[in-house]
């Protein structure tokens, strides 16, 4: 369904070009939920932007259903790392944004079909637990709420592919878990092929059917691991299962290998341990 072929990105710069990632080749089948895991700065966001068509690849190509990607389009929905709701629209208007665009208009559709698209937007609002906020503007929403709306907005038009760039990165642990559960539920119902970028190992294993691991920059695929759990298995208890923990250990080992520890830093750490900073006298800490 989605295929990356020898995809590569180098940012030209006056001093020294930054080789962000690649070459990377990947094939994604219909309905898969793939997590892209990798250390910070390894080019995950860049790869996602290229697949979305928001950025040009330096080499290689992206194909969707055999068609080469040349620019952004509604068949590839995206949820961003930052909050990107339109602040002047209410939650409901935000989710309906794509329905008013000429490119998504089907002039042969019956009035009933058009209405059903609006009904779908409302249905998603409900599914994501946003009805009470439907008429609020984004500034009245918490971070978790905002990302829920962004997910609904991206799904309204039934994209072929959903791209998510660390969508829960800025959320607290509890909200994060809620939204992970929600993603599993949504994927069960919608079956949207999803590419989910994260640097959280547990999150990757919990939500996805396959984990692709990037090396440190320039990112290359160093592992491609199927996750054997069915969507019915994916309850909070799963995180304590030995099979889950075993996979987590394996991935953690891979990522630890990719850490950018250098000799200089090691030396500094050793010195700190050898000569701890003296604590201030107790009388001062009043």
């Amino acid at each position, binding site marked *: 369904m989605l295929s990356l072929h020898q995809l590569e990105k180098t940012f030209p710069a006056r001093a020294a070009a930054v080789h962000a990632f690649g070459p990377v080749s990947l094939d994604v089948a219909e309905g898969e939920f793939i997590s892209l895991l990798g250390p910070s700065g390894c080019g995950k966001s860049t790869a996602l932007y290229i697949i*979305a*068509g*928001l950025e040009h690849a330096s080499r290689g190509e992206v194909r969707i259903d055999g068609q080469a990607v040349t*620019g*952004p*389009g*509604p068949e*590839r*929905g*995206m949820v*961003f790392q*930052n909050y*990107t*709701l*339109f*602040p*002047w629209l209410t939650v409901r208007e935000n989710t309906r*944004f*794509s329905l*008013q*665009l*000429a*490119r*998504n208009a089907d002039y042969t559709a019956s009035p009933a079909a058009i209405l059903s698209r609006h009904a779908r937007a409302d249905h998603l609002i409900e599914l994501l637990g946003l009805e009470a906020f439907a008429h609020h*503007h*984004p*500034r009245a929403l918490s971070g978790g709420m905002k990302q829920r709306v*962004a997910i609904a*907005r*991206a799904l309204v*038009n039934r994209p072929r592919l959903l*791209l998510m760039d660390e969508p829960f990165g800025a959320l607290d642990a509890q909200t994060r878990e809620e939204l992970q559960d929600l993603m599993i539920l949504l994927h069960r119902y919608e079956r949207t092929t999803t590419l989910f970028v994260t640097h959280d190992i547990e999150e990757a294993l919990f939500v996805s059917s396959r984990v692709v691991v990037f090396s440190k920059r320039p990112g290359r695929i160093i592992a491609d691991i199927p996750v054997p759990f069915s969507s019915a298995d994916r309850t909070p208890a799963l995180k304590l299962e030995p099979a889950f923990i075993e996979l987590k250990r394996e991935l953690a080992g891979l990522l630890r290998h990719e850490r950018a520890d250098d000799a200089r830093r090691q030396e500094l750490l050793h010195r700190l341990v050898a000569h701890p900073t003296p604590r201030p006298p107790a009388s001062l800490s009043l």
Partner: protein
Amino acid sequence: MSLQPNAWSHLLAVRTPLPRWLHVGLACLGFAGCVGLYLWAGARPDNNPTFIPPIERIATAAQTILSGPDFWSDVRASFGRVTAGLLLAVLFAVPFGLWIGAFRPIEALTQPVVEFLRYVPVPALIPIVMIFFGIGEGAKIALIFLGTFFQLALMVAEEVRRVPNDLVHAAQTLGASRGEILSLVLFRGALPGILDAVRLCNGWAWSYVVVAEMIAATEGLGFRVLRFYRFIQTPNIFVYLLVLGLIGLALDQLFRACNARLFRWADATRR
């Protein structure tokens, strides 16, 4: 609503919000201070009442002026000129600024020229405007247009540039075309800032209209002020200055109120 005694010093902490009553009270105190200063200067033995007339004389002058025929036609004339010039400027500067802010080639082509033009002092344009448009209404409207168009176009462009790129990206991944990005994202996102820019331009337009009217006009607030000067009618001049200030203040408040009412969504990011 009452403040703790030690809260008074806290009020001068950076960006501390002020209770409403105190805000209004301080604003009134500011005006009262001005009146006090005027009274004090007028009461000095070395004051010539022609320079600083007693307040009663200003009040009587105000009564005569407000009941006379000239005042309202002056207000109407100045107001009409400002409105026409400003509307014309908004009509052209908003789309132009949108293009400058949205398209880099247009920015490169026009922004330096516009930057240059906006620093030409408006009163210096009066002779050239009179050569082109004569001394009729057209000349005054043209002057206000020239004085505000370039400023407004650049301010609109700046507001458009300040719409986060992420919002443009989000719209693109939802299928928005170039035109839709311009109208549904960039214009909508910049709208509160644009209204604020129009508010500032309105203030400048009032200065320009007064200058224009002093040079060539047969009615209008600026024309009348200069006429009072010819007859050394200081109380009348003060009445007109007060009126000009009040009109400016009222319009400014009106623009602010509109902005707050229409763009409540922007509260968190602006102000």
